[in-house]
């Protein structure tokens, strides 16, 4: 697969890349299935009217293309005397978020982050949330964040207790072990299949 970069907006690491016959707008966070497919005249449009630069680099894979776009973002900003920070402070993000966004962030912690057992992430987020200036105007969001922090703590405790219980048991094939003889039969069958190199009992 050859990927051809046809236009680039270096300061934002955005590229228009041709893969086979398809042009795509490739931009952070570089999720390929979310990369819009562009019409053929988009390269001219982007360069003549929207501040993109012409480009001709080619890449063997998407990973290399994305590394290049990231490098261009650093170089373009550095040439203007601007450095990209190593990290974005969570508190800075939360301090400028409007209430509907703060509320949607809490929804995501409740519906996605805690159920996925990303307890450290949830805790980091909620502690930053509770320390942010935004709460000065939104006391009800603070109460909700505190409740989620407690729920996260309980979910973590429950999850750790479950892991610990599993670690203390031999749970390789619990259902087979419960049925007397089934486990031993499975071991014999496995041995037979390995010896004849086939799951079928034929002579070939």
């Amino acid at each position, binding site marked *: 697969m050859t990927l051809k970069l046809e236009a680039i*907006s270096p*300061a*934002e*690491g*955005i590229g228009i890349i041709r893969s086979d016959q398809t042009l795509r*707008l490739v931009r*952070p*966070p*570089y999720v390929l299935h979310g990369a819009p497919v*562009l019409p053929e005249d*988009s390269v*001219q*449009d*982007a*360069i*003549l*009217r*929207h*501040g*993109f*630069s*012409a480009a001709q680099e080619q890449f063997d894979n998407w990973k290399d293309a*994305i590394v290049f*776009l*990231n490098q261009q*973002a*650093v170089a373009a*900003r550095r*040439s*203007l005397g601007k450095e*990209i*920070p*190593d*990290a*974005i402070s*969570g508190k*800075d*993000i939360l*301090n*400028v*978020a409007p209430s509907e*966004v703060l509320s*949607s*962030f809490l929804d*995501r912690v409740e519906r996605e*982050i805690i159920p996925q057992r*990303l307890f450290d*992430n949830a805790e*980091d*987020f909620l502690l*930053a949330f509770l320390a942010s200036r935004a709460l000065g105007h939104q006391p009800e969001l603070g109460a909700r964040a505190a409740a989620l922090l407690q729920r996260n703590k309980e979910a973590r405790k429950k999850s750790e207790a479950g892991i610990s219980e599993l670690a203390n048991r031999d749970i390789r094939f619990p259902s087979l072990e419960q049925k007397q003889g089934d486990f031993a039969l499975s071991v014999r069958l496995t041995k037979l299949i390995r010896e004849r190199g086939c799951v079928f009992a034929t002579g070939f």
Partner: protein
Amino acid sequence: MDAMLDLFEIARGNANAVQAAFTSAVATMSPDQAALVHEFAAWVEEKALVSINVKLFVIVDFLNGGRYQNIHEWAQEQSRLSGRSAEDALRERLHKFYDKRVAFDRAFKGGEQFRYGALNAGGAGLPEYDPWCIILTRDFITSLPDIAYLPGDSLTICFSADGAFDVSVVEGRTAPHTHRHLMVAKERASEVPLTDKRDWAGIVASPGRYFEVIFIGDVSLNAVECVRVLKTEYDRMWDMAFASFGRKLGVAERALVHDFVQMRRGVVDGRIQVEVVA
């Protein structure tokens, strides 16, 4: 060398012709339809402002005291920073599209100072590649001595199929600020009766189809009425910001989120207004 054209003088000289073309277009319509087109023209005059779609870092530059750069000013800056010629920077950036850009800009007096925008009566302008749509204030627009309107993208309508610059389009179809609404109404006369009034903004500007505005003047934060952005892009930025709590963002992601936080700080501090549109 050919004498340079004065785009704005041409536009001012076209005032009567634009008026006549509008009058002629509505004369062929039924009284009801003609009245609706007159209403549309008045609506455009009242509502439409000038927009420029930009990338997020341009708004951050505005907040930090910067001003909008056109491509020629960008090339000059590159020359100052790198020591190579501005012409080389321009050629490298535009590559095979260099001739077209330069043919248009250099045909006109002051052409390398031109800023290009679009008439905007609502919506996020032309957001495909530049999602952030700056709307310029009415005061700024009316204070501009040099401003002209074209019924489409200049690099499309002013060039023939073989790529030659066709000056007759500029001479025949450019309108001055005072007659912009009549040009828009004449061009969209057949669509107005078929379009719900709530969708009129869409026939003024939509991706790939718009009225170009060319002017000379410095654009900085003072000239900005508000910034419009599509909800999909706005949500995308918040998604990236939220992702920073769970993982270390890539460097370009961090650059964007950093810009976004700075822009939002400008909103919180009341220095800039952002409208999120569907």
